[in-house]
């Protein structure tokens, strides 16, 4: 297993893609969190700020998940789909015919890069959002224990997304299809679903079982919940379980479909 992990890790760091994605992620998160923090602190005369104080800070910092999760998902899915796109899967399975071990190594190997992406993603989000909150708003709350805990969990969440990305890539091994589905889901389907579900009382609880909702629950704050409060978030332990369950279920499906088939 050690050898398989080392091999998978080397596969990741010997290409440039994840690196480029991190650069884009930093720029994007910095910009979006600056924009969101601006919407909290520059409130037109006569209207009320959507969120204030600590809630504003936490909602801003949660953007690392709320809008940032597409990046670790893509990084993770690329780690798997690139094997099929460039047919390196053949050589990979020649040296590791145990396909379960191959998949496990792949899932675990993205954790270091996921954590690294989490650290730079959180840093970019804070760097983008904190200045305006501190200067114009009620403060950046970067000394607050709860806020700092949320930031640390943000790092963990990003790493989990990378793992889920690998698992998803093992189901949808076509690289282009995987990226299109991830983009559509994270940028369009899930945000709309969460907003719509939260408007229906009977279904409000369901939204937090969607992957992005569960991840916001783990962090303990939601940008999408900014309008309606975050009463619908799951407890942290439950959120962690839900996220891990997504990874496990996807990986099992991938093992039983894509990775059961003949290669070549």
């Amino acid at each position, binding site marked *: 297993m*050690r*050898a*398989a992990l*080392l*091999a998978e890790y*080397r*596969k990741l760091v*010997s*290409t*440039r*893609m994840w690196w480029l994605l991190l650069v884009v992620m930093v720029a994007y998160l910095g910009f979006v969190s600056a924009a969101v923090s601006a919407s909290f602190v520059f409130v037109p005369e006569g209207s009320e700020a959507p969120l204030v104080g600590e809630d504003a800070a936490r909602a801003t910092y949660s953007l690392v998940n709320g809008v940032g999760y597409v990046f670790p998902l893509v990084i993770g899915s690329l780690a798997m789909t*690139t094997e099929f796109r*460039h*047919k*390196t899967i*053949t*050589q*990979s*399975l*020649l*040296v*590791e*015919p*145990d396909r379960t071990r191959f998949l496990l190594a792949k899932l675990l190997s993205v954790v270091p890069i996921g954590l690294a992406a989490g650290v730079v993603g959180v840093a970019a989000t804070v760097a983008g959002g904190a200045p305006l909150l501190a200067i114009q708003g009620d403060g950046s709350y970067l000394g607050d224990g709860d806020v700092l805990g949320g930031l640390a969990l943000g790092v963990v969440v990003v790493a989990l997304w990378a793992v889920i990305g690998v698992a998803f890539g093992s189901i949808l091994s076509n690289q282009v299809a995987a990226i299109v589905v991830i983009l559509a889901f994270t940028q369009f389907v899930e945000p709309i679903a969460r907003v719509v579900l939260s408007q229906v009382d009977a279904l409000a609880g369901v939204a937090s079982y969607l992957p992005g909702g569960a991840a916001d629950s783990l962090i303990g704050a939601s940008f999408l919940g900014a309008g309606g409060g975050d009463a619908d978030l799951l407890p942290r332990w439950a959120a962690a379980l839900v996220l891990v369950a997504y990874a496990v279920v996807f990986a099992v499906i991938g093992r039983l479909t894509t990775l059961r088939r*003949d*290669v*070549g």
Partner: protein
Amino acid sequence: MTAPSLAIDGLTKQFGGVRAVDDLTFTVRPGAVTGFLGPNGAGKTTTLRMLLGLTRPSAGRALVGEREYAAHPQPGRVVGAALEASSFHPGRTGLAHLEVFAPQVGVSRTRCRQVLEAVGLGHAAKQRVGRYSLGMRQRLGLATALLADPPVIVLDEPTNGLDPEGIVWIRRLLRQFADEGRTVLVSSHLLREVEASVDEVVIIAQGRLRHASSLAELRTRATPAAYVVAPRPDAVAALATDRGWAATEDGGGIVVDGATAAEVGAAAHAAGIELHELVRRDVDLEALFFELTRPAGADAEEGPR
């Protein structure tokens, strides 16, 4: 080196309604180069993929030594394989490609560099594979196969895309592997490509075994022949009978089986028989190979159109 042999036993692969490989049985012994031959689409690659655990056989099995490929604890140390579709991530350097697969075959980064030098890619170690030529990719595939210095070497069409110099180089390499006692299996769709380096031949067509023997034995099946046009064909026929050759009329001339054109010419000269044409009509290895791999039932299709 005591290398394991390969045993293909009743191997069959059904793709939908097509039998790509059909009840194939043969063995590959150590200390020799075995050519695995057949036209494109004969089922060679599918057979190799089943041998290497990438494709699941519909029936039968393939053994490397005592067990199936995937049942070896570190199969990459036992069998070094370069498949036709051996593919690389274009963004990785040649050296990085080898380093990626090094841990699982238990070799160091130093060894990666050595192997790259050995296949003549030392200068391109830091170049991305996306910029490699086809010949360089073949060499990188070979380097991947040789990483662990394995006792069994399986190469699928290794000469594709190589320049003449590279082809000579790979022939010598195969020879050397066999002399070291390794088990070497090399596929090709051209007998001529591997004729100079193989000891054994396994010929398949349409997924079925057509012939398996030593190359020497296959050669004995090849016969020399000459085509002769002479003003007195009866004299030529008599001469042939006299020498123990078979003579058959063919168009305006005579085909003499069992003799080279030179032998026929010399005999005619000695007997004072006038010849107007003397042409080689040998059934050579290539022709024999063509004959052996001809689709079943093709004879019937050759009627009038």
